[in-house]
């Protein structure tokens, strides 16, 4: 890459009136601002859906509790799931992708900046629509406010016979709107990564984050589409007399399940592959070594992308498929463990022989590795159909997928937050608060989700607003609830850290981590145009080459 020094006009604090600055954020098509908007929007929903989780956990702290009514509990459980998946984890990952991809491939923006803005605002609109249901969801029948059909919204519970009023319509339309936004983001990721790379950056020299988001983009297009189609079919059922899922008129409840899970399982990988991407960037920098087995990592990701489309019916082992159907989905499900395992081994290979710097981003990545390992192993248990007949629909499953989403994805996300916070804000976060966040959150996480497996094994189904005493479930539910408060305290420290460091943090400089990818070559925060001159790269670690001219990577790749 070019090592010329070009003097840039210093960017002072923005002196314009606040209205003008806000207007800037609303009409922006800049990938960095949109990325931050995605992230802030998702953080807001993290807090909202977190409060919903706390309400559920208080209700379940003792048997026969009367903290909330079953109707409210069912709304909380539906809104928590829907919000966390569609309006927290997905947008936050799109936010990081939108922010980082152009910077890491040496581009000045996404391929389609206006589509980028459109995608964000569609997603944002979807979230607002979902939450507007608390006010507008009553409809004519007075039958409740927010949706209460569970985040899978299994037919025929969503038929008008069982869900009168408009709460289910808000759910459907919210997902329809945000789905359009997601597809836009997927298209944009693919176009940007394929067309906007800087000179010298062949596909084989892209940072892994770009590779993994390329795979995510492809998966988004192919898996959100069936979900969107199913939402339209549900609208037709509810308002135009269609009978796709209307079992009382001969429709098929199982058809909805297939539509939902052909979306739902690749969705898990849409969420987890960007988390893999963060870990694949952070672990090498904090181990001071290049990623171990780069081509294998890429191949494993692509394999996951393809196999993930053939495993969906492992969510349906209990719906009565034939023994051959069940066996097929057992095979594909355990097969996906192979490329996933390869990734874990390669991260370990990266750490092996390195000099591991235990700063907060790396702590979260180690937490990720530990928890994702366990999540993968409980996934194997759930993937073997007979064991699944016992475990599915129980608290064991709830524990398993929270292990994936919180223990895996959210831990990687926090790692990413602390790693790129200096780049986005120009200031370092507070390391002490960061460590408090890590320890509070990991203790809370394990209190909650380790012990949540046990009531599942003891026969406690999910989605129940209360339970009978004397079944051996009380103690575990109490511990789980205590853990939830530790996690909430961790999140509070995190938010305080973000806000405090924004004003009081040490100036970060361009490259606080002595890292190797292109985003660290520009200022923090980056200027509007990202790079004053288009960088030229010769290897996967352009900044390593620059820092070690006597021993550059391109000699070996």
């Amino acid at each position: 890459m070019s090592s010329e020094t070009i003097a840039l006009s210093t960017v002072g604090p923005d002196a314009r009136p606040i209205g003008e600055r806000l207007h800037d954020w609303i009409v922006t098509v800049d990938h960095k601002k949109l990325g931050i908007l995605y992230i802030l929007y998702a953080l807001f929903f993290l807090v909202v859906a977190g409060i919903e989780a706390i309400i559920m956990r208080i209700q379940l702290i003792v048997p026969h509790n009367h903290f909330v009514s079953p109707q409210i509990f069912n709304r909380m459980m539906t809104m928590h799931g829907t919000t966390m998946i569609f309006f927290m984890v997905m947008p936050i990952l799109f936010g990081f992708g939108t922010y980082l991809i152009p910077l890491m491939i040496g581009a000045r923006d996404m391929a389609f900046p206006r589509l980028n803005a459109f995608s964000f605002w569609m997603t944002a609109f979807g979230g607002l629509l979902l939450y507007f249901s608390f006010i507008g969801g009553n409809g004519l029948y007075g039958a409740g406010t927010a949706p209460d059909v569970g985040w899978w919204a299994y037919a025929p519970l969503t038929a008008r016979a069982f869900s009168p009023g408009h709460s289910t319509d808000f759910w459907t339309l919210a997902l329809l709107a945000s789905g359009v936004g997601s597809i836009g983001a997927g298209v944009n990721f693919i176009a940007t990564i394929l067309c906007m790379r800087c000179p010298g950056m062949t596909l084989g020299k892209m940072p892994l984050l770009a590779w993994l988001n390329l795979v995510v983009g492809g998966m988004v297009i192919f898996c959100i589409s069936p979900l969107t189609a199913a939402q339209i079919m549900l609208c037709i059922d509810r308002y135009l007399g269609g009978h796709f899922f209307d079992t009382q008129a001969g429709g098929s409840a199982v058809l909805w399940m297939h539509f939902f899970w052909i979306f739902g399982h690749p969705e898990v990988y849409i969420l987890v592959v960007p988390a893999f991407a963060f870990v694949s960037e952070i672990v090498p920098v904090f181990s001071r070594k290049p990623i171990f087995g780069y081509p294998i990592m890429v191949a494993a990701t692509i394999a996951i992308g393809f196999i993930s489309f053939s495993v969906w019916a492992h969510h349906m082992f209990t719906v009565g498929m034939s023994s051959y159907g069940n066996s097929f989905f057992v095979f594909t499900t355990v097969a996906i463990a192979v490329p996933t395992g390869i990734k874990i081994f390669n991260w370990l290979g990266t750490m092996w022989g390195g000099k591991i710097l235990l700063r907060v981003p790396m702590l979260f990545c180690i937490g990720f590795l530990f928890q994702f390992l366990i999540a993968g192993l409980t996934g194997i248990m759930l993937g073997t159909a007979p064991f699944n007949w016992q475990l599915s629909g129980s608290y064991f499953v709830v524990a398993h997928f929270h292990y994936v989403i919180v223990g895996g994805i959210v831990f990687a996300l926090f790692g990413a937050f602390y790693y790129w916070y200096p780049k986005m804000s120009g200031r370092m976060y507070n390391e002490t608060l960061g460590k408090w966040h890590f320890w509070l959150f990991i203790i809370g996480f394990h209190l909650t989700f380790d012990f949540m497996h046990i009531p599942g094994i003891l026969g406690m189904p999910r989605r129940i607003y209360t339970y009978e005493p004397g079944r051996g479930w009380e103690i575990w539910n109490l511990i789980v609830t205590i853990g939830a408060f530790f996690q909430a305290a961790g999140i509070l420290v995190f938010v305080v850290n973000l806000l405090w460091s924004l004003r009081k943090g040490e100036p970060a400089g361009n490259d606080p981590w002595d890292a190797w990818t292109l985003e660290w070559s520009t200022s923090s925060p980056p200027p509007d145009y990202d790079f004053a001159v288009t960088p030229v790269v010769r290897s996967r670690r352009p900044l390593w080459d620059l820092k070690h001219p006597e021993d550059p990577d391109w000699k070996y790749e």
Partner: protein
Amino acid sequence: MVIELPCHAPEGRKGGADGDSRLPRNIGQREMNRSAQTRALLGRVAGVAVLLAAGLLAASLCLASPSDPTQIPSIFKPQSTPAHSIFHLSMLILAITGAIFAVVFSLLAYSVAKFRKRANDDDREPAQVYGSNQIELAWTVIPILIVLVLFLATARVIRSIQDAPQPPGAIEVTAIGHQFWWEFRYPALGVVTANELHVPVSNPANSTPTFLTLLSADTDHSFWVPRLAGKTDLIPNHPNHTWIDPQEAGLYIGQCAQYCGTQHAKMLLRVYVDSPEQFKQWVEEQKKPAVSTDAVAEGRRIFETTACVNCHAVAGTVANGRFGPDLTHLMSRDTIASGAASNSEANLRAWIQSPDSFKPGSLMPAMQLTDHDLDALTAYLVTLR
């Protein structure tokens, strides 16, 4: 573009993808402070452990209620062939996944402990290793072998449970899921009951398994009695099948395991496994029509002239509704409201007066009867033995 370059000389690097080492690494110095740092790390781990233990202890003291172990519907206490087969498979899977966990976790813990950057580090970059095809091959092939073993073991159990032939002595039951209760019909025996399934004990010498056909009247439900079998869903327009052959008499607890609406939580399920004689006697009792005495004629009149009959059936009377549980032998059951309350006269009266006080959101309406009518109606219902 201005880039500040910290000048670290790499200690050495390993060559391309073939993984040949070019230079040995210098690790001498880092031994120095190891014991102090290990102690610090151990201290931290110990702190966390103490915290966890304290939390657990406090929690268990708060809630040390002795619960009857036979009432715990644990999947690890199987009492029927399908649950047994699953239990054995799950032990194999737990052993394999446990071994994988032990290996990978040790590698992770070792890497973090051994390769931590020390306080007295020389700030030189470690050897730059890009990968190794041999190692990649090893950790691809070994998992593939494990996956094959898992798949074959699983496929065998799937076949043995799902494709088990129905022996001639089997009891046939049709289970129908409703919001939020269970209907059980024994077509060959002419018995209809609700929420409490009675089946005979089955032993290898005289196998009398129960084969269930699972239907739904409204939304999706799931039949789950953990100690007897894995769950199978009840889906409208999609008949399913499952079977159990309990080997020990007793009560087995379960509940609906597929979210079916507001009162999913209180769609409880009880399976009574009777000795062959008890079962035969139970069937005889259930087949009789309802008898009622003149003493409760008023209650019966109230029952038959209010909305009760739209939903409930009592054999031998005008009441033939199908939306609610069959009440012909109501008092032969231990619970009402699908297990939400025990079946006593007081509970029955309170339930008719205000179903929401037991089960808010249940589809049984509050009947708005006068106290006098309520007493008479309850008096009639408790004669339905």
